[in-house]
């Protein structure tokens, strides 16, 4: 199993990098873990333009002039966890609801009509939205969408295998922070307080046969440079262990949410950019997700430079697509409020093709 190195050792690996290390990393044909540390370091800051051009070239070579489009579908905001930073925390007094299967299907149909073909089902951690619920929903949706992935509570391998057979294509599960001390502080109660169980979750999803596994951490909780190195090491380990699985990484920055949490170590735009470039250079085949947490100006600017997948027209409250003025609480407020058509137009204006379908439900039907 993957074990996170001591966070201090990650921090010093990054802090010790010199300008010469950065130059070597940028010239390396196959950058390794030391190169990743250098690219994440303060010494790499003056090289942001050089990193951009290498990242753009690597991304173009592997993914061409395309950006994949998806939408999140929040099915529930019930949650047993008390994560200090999350709008869904059990501590917060927000209107709670889990969509019925009919309601969730109606939301999905709306998204389909708007032109989405890739769905990401999202929920808080609660028994009501477990394997059975997701399986039933997947079976209802599988013929309407090319790909359906999930971002829900960690499950056992058998649970993922069941969902795979029902048509779920991928799972995203973010560690939130690879810094164990901070992790303990941020997740004081609920099942999520188990760091090790969560860390082993991506491997369980891959072992169950899911086509794509997403990892990442929440930007703002701890030292982003050391976190970036940790996620790179996690990714490299997963690649060796599960060579048939495609991987994605996402770097969600903290957004304003119920509870009014202030991130202890906020990450600015230049730093987020450095992180994205560093991971792209380290792993040219990686799917990089840039969600509507970021604003339109930033997302438009990043087209072609590294990210490969954008969400659009997102609402983070369950039932929010059908009733935008509904009462259910949202997880966070989004930064890019444009519709799918507006986002696609912006991508086209940059000379890229917004790709809505890049998978097929048929692949999963052989699993049944």
């Amino acid at each position, binding site marked *: 199993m993957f074990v996170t190195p001591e966070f201090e050792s990650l921090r010093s690996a990054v802090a010790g990098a010199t300008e010469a290390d950065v130059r070597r990393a940028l010239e390396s044909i196959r950058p390794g873990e030391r190169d990743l540390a250098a690219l994440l370091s303060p010494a790499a800051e003056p090289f942001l333009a050089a990193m951009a051009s290498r990242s753009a070239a690597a991304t173009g070579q*592997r993914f061409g*002039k395309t950006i994949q489009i998806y939408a999140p579908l929040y099915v529930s905001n019930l949650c047993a966890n008390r994560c200090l930073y999350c709008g869904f925390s059990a501590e917060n007094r927000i209107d709670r609801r889990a969509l019925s299967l009919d309601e969730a299907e109606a939301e999905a149909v709306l998204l389909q009509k708007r032109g989405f073909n890739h769905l990401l089902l999202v929920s808080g951690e609660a028994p009501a939205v477990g394997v059975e619920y997701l399986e039933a929903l997947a079976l209802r949706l599988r013929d309407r969408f090319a790909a359906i992935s999930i971002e829900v509570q960690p499950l056992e391998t058998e649970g993922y295998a069941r969902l795979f057979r029902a048509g779920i294509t991928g799972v995203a599960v973010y560690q939130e922070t690879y810094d164990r001390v901070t992790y303990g502080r941020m997740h004081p109660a609920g099942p999520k307080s188990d760091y090790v169980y969560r860390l082993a979750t991506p491997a369980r999803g891959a072992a169950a046969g899911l086509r794509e596994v997403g990892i990442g951490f929440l930007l703002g909780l701890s030292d982003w440079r050391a976190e970036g190195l940790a996620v790179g090491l996690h990714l490299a380990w997963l690649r060796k262990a599960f*060579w*048939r699985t*495609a991987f994605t990484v996402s770097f969600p920055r903290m957004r304003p949410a119920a509870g009014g949490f202030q991130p202890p170590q906020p990450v600015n735009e230049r730093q987020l950019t450095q992180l994205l470039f560093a991971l792209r250079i380290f792993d040219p085949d990686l799917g990089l997700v840039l969600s509507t947490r970021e604003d339109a100006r930033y997302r438009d600017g990043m087209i072609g430079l590294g990210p490969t997948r954008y969400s659009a027209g997102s609402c983070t409250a369950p039932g929010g697509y059908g009733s935008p003025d509904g009462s259910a609480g949202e997880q966070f407020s989004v930064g890019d409020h444009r519709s799918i058509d507006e986002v696609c137009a912006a991508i*086209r204006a940059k000379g890229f*093709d917004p790709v809505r379908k*890049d*998978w097929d439900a048929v*692949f999963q039907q052989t699993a049944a």
Partner: protein
Amino acid sequence: MLTIAGREFRSRLFGGTGKFASAEVMRDALVASGTEMVTVALRRVDLADPADDIMRVLDRERYLLLPNTSGARDAREAIRLAHLARAAGGTPWLKLEVTPDPRTLLPDPVETLKATEELVKDGFIVLPYMNADPILALRLQDAGAAAVMPLGSPIGTNQGIVTAFQVRIIIEQARVPVVVDAGLGAPSHAAQAMEMGADAVLVNTAIAVSGDPVRMARAFAMAVAAGRDAYEAGLGEARENAAASSPETGLDFLR
């Protein structure tokens, strides 16, 4: 003229539909390339939907569409996709791709052979994407493949014909057409494949992601034609040492 499964092709350059900035750029580049065979990923298009962003710009009179099974991890998935493609698009032509490693997209030889055997029995015209393994090429040919498509280097790498040594053996041995597929990053790579005696090449990434796809498509078309002409004209052999112009040196003992 190139003939595959009884169908004739004037152009020996095959095209792809991935990674383009827009469907319109793709359409124009394919026209400029002069190609008559275009591969489309079944994961990316809906063959049955005339409004599909890619399908709506592809002129079915001009091109033979070659659906591919990109994304299939094993024979079973590829076979299922193939049947659906035939049902939706009405074509028995298939570019078989079984690529279980999403990173390198290298083809699985065992599953590719298995799927080829099965699909040929089911009446498909199978063009398998394969590693440049001469024995595998013979096995696929014996299984009924209509052509073999060995890679020059991994998909999208632009490395050219890194596998030249094996590709030469494949060309020498094959009874079916040999189409060098994947990794051709420059027109010179395509010309090299054609000079070696390949029957055709398939080029996608190098055209799609170039600064000017239309112009690059034209460049590849010219390179393919030049390489083929050179092959048919008969190339002089490359030599390590200069050939002596007076070959009698050292033979002055002869009477």
